[in-house]
Every structure is written in C-alpha cells, then in structure tokens.
C-alpha cells in the first residue's frame, strides 16, 4: 500500500529528525548561552541527541507524542482511504519503534499497544482545489500538552482586558506557570477569539508555521516579536535551569469571536518540535 508507506516514512522522519529551522534555532540558543552554565550544557546535550537520533533513525524523544494529521485532498477522494492508511502507518511505525504506544483507553486504562484507538491517530480533513494531496503531521508530546492553557478575558487577577495588551499578559502568565515542565525552550502557539474548541485548535495549528516567519497581520507580527523578547527575559531557560532561552518562537493567529466571549488559547510544544509535511502528486512524494 503506497499511501501507507509514504505516511510511515513521514512518521519516521518526524520522530527521528527535526526540521532545519528548529535545529538552527537550537544551535543559536546554544551559542547565546554563557560558557560553563547549566543552560549551555543542556543545549550541548540536546544538539548531540538530535545528531545521534538522526544517525540511528531512532526517536529524538521517547515521548513520540500523539499522532495528528491535517490532510488536504482533491475533490472526489475518499477520507476512508486516508484514515485506513494513517492507522496502518501508525501500527507499523509502532512495530518499528518510530512511535511509542501512546493510545490509552481512559475508561479501562488499557494501552492499545499500536497507537490506534478512538480518535487516534487524530485526523483533520480538508478538501481543496489542487490536484495534489498534502499531509501535514504533528507528533505532539504529552508533557508540553499539559502546560497549555486557555484564558477568558477580561481576567481580573492579571488585569488583562479585551485587547492585544490583555492577550500579551495571559501568554506571559501561561509561559511563566509552565516553567521548565513542558521541556523548555518551548514554541508558543496562540489562538485569539473563536470558541472553547476552536481557540485551542487555532493555537495548535500555528505549530505548522516555520520558526521566525511572522504573521501576515502587522499587529499580530508586532505582538509575536514583543512576546518572543519578553518571554526570553523570564530566565526560565532550557529545562527550567535558568538561561537566556525560554522560548524558540511565538506564533499568534486570530479568528472572529462571539460578542460575549474573548478566549485566548496557548498551546506549548517542547523543543522536540516535530512537524513534517509531504505532498503527493501523481506517483511522486516530496517531504519537507
């Protein structure tokens, strides 16, 4: 099954190697920290680990995350075909130790053992006008998922009102509360507006953007820059050991809200920032 094999390769690449923009940001972070500090030593270990994982084709991190796929496909294609291929690829990837079995039944406590279960892998489908298929994969770690947060503005304790200044405050609060627990340095996805569900979804989708690529909206681009600078002043540092690098990037997006609500969702991903995509056009598959 060709589609399954292409998805398996996508999973292997995501689990065992980081994208060039992420590795470059980690190298910059290493260079920025002072000699002889725990932060420098942590980044040294991180970079060595990334190299070892790539060479051995083994997972960068043992928490190989939840398997999340965004699939854009041409008119007339069947979602069922993609779902079956994704499940088969997840099973195979688990057998080959590219993935740890990470799907647990919350009622019985039983691990399915193969990463397949209810909403596992989690698939988002979108039909588009192009004659090619795009599969975007995210392997989202659980420790960093736990430090995500959703705020409802206004927030009295933080004196955060319903504007971008208020948004900035709650993002600082969330990252400060996370400390090193989400495997700092993190990448921060922020979703403004929408409802309870869509604000988190929007925040997480920001992880598909490249690091350092600003928002097309100039107000949000300015907010991203300010937040990136402020968050790195917190001195939480890698692993929460203290240091100059608390986050590697901040990506913000906004969507219309109901007049009564103003949600801000913050998704946090660890430095093992795993997302890759592939384009299938005819019989050709390209990975990025």
């Amino acid at each position, binding site marked *: 099954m060709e589609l399954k094999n292409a998805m398996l390769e996508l999973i292997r690449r995501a689990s065992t190697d980081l994208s060039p923009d992420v590795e470059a940001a980690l190298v910059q972070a290493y260079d920025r920290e002072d000699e002889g500090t725990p932060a420098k030593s942590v980044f040294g270990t991180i970079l060595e680990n990334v190299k070892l994982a790539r060479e051995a084709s083994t997972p960068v991190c043992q*928490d190989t995350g939840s398997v999340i796929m965004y699939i854009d496909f041409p008119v007339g294609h069947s979602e069922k075909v993609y779902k079956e291929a994704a499940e088969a690829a997840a099973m195979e990837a688990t057998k080959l*130790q590219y993935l740890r079995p990470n799907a647990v039944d919350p009622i019985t406590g039983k691990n399915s053992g193969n990463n397949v279960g209810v909403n596992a892998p989690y698939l988002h489908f979108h039909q588009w006008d192009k004659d090619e298929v795009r599969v975007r994969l995210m392997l989202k770690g659980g420790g960093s998922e736990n430090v995500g947060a959703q705020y409802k503005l206004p927030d009295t304790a933080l004196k955060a009102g319903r504007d971008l200044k208020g948004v900035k405050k709650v993002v600082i609060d969330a990252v400060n509360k996370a400390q090193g627990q989400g495997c700092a340095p993190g990448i921060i996805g922020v979703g403004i507006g929408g409802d309870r569900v869509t604000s988190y979804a929007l925040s997480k989708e920001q992880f598909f953007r490249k690091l350092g690529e600003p928002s097309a909206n100039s107000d949000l681009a300015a907010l991203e820059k300010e937040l990136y600078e402020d968050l790195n002043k917190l001195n939480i540092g890698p*692993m929460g050991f203290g240091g100059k690098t608390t986050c590697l990037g901040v990506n913000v997006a906004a969507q219309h809200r109901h007049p009564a609500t103003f949600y801000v969702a913050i998704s946090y991903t*660890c430095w093992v920032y795993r997302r890759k995509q592939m384009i299938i056009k005819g019989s050709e598959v390209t990975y990025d």
Partner: protein
Amino acid sequence: MIKLTTPISEETARSLKVGDEVLLSGTIVTARDAAHKLMVEEKPDFPRPYMKDGVIYHCGPVVKKHEDGSYSFVAAGPTTSTREEPYQAAVCEEYSVRAVIGKGGMGPKTLEGLQKVGAVYLHAVGGAGTLIAKRCTKVETVFKLEEFGTPEAFWVIQVEDFPCVVTMDSHGNSLHKEIAAKSDEIAKELMGLK
C-alpha cells in the same frame, strides 16, 4: 562531576547538593503514573529489592523486543515529574528510595519527603531520548508490562554514566523553587502588575 553507583547509602544521598553534576551507574527502575498510584495504594513487594537504597526513573521508554525475548531501550528520556507530586514522598519513604530521576522538578511535598528520607531529585535532559537510551546498557526484567503497557511498566535496567544534575536535595534546597520565584517577579514586571 560526581560518580554515583547504586545502591546509594543515606549518607551519600545526604552529601549531595543542588547544582552537583552526577554520572549515575548501576541498577535503577522506571516508574511513572500508574506505578506510583499502585505503590501508594497497594504497596506491592516486587519493587522492594530494586528500590531499597535505589533509584526511581520517571520514564516511559520506547522499547525493542528481540527475537530471543530480551528487551533493549531505543529512546528513554525523562517524563514530567510533577504528576507524581501527590505520591512521591510516600513512595520514597515506603521503599527507602535514595534518588528520583525526572524532569521539570517537583513540589514542596516531595522536597519535604527528600529531607525526611535522605534522598535527592536528579534532573535529566528532557527530550534526550536517544542519547540517554545509549546509557541504558541492559534491561534486567520488567513488571506489569501487560497490565500497564510499555510506557507505564516497571522496567528494571542497568545504566552506565547516566548524566544528571541535582536540582532538589535533602537540605530543603530546590533549584526549581528559586527559578520560579525569580521568574514570578519578572513576569509581574512585564505584565505591569508591580
């Protein structure tokens, strides 16, 4: 750099201070969420021989099963420790544990437990899955694999020169407490709440 080998005496554990860099060797046991809940609620005896003066590792590894039935670790970095905060102090006391390896640090209840028992918290580099797996030289045995699944099982392993930093000691010191106190102040300033 301090070389530590299991079993670790109470005296050795008490001599360690926040900031000490450690290379750990010997036998250690992985235990995370389901394992800690079990150890507090049912106090099973099977972990005792490995945990007395021993080390618990908060880790859910990626494991390869070989054709002869033996296992090896493929990726094995630490998991977030704070989830074990409700259980850790009681587990350390019940099983006379001398060190807990994890990431992200733990809270006041564990810090008090470490003081009482004479134990330390060792921080490993989160996300360093492949690098740490190379220091896990042998899987001796495994408990609760079928019931808990691979990430949650008790894996008894041998490690060689496993790199860690003491971030919580038996004298009431915690690097995590210090860093959080400072960043709280900075955050307040950045939010205009000071």
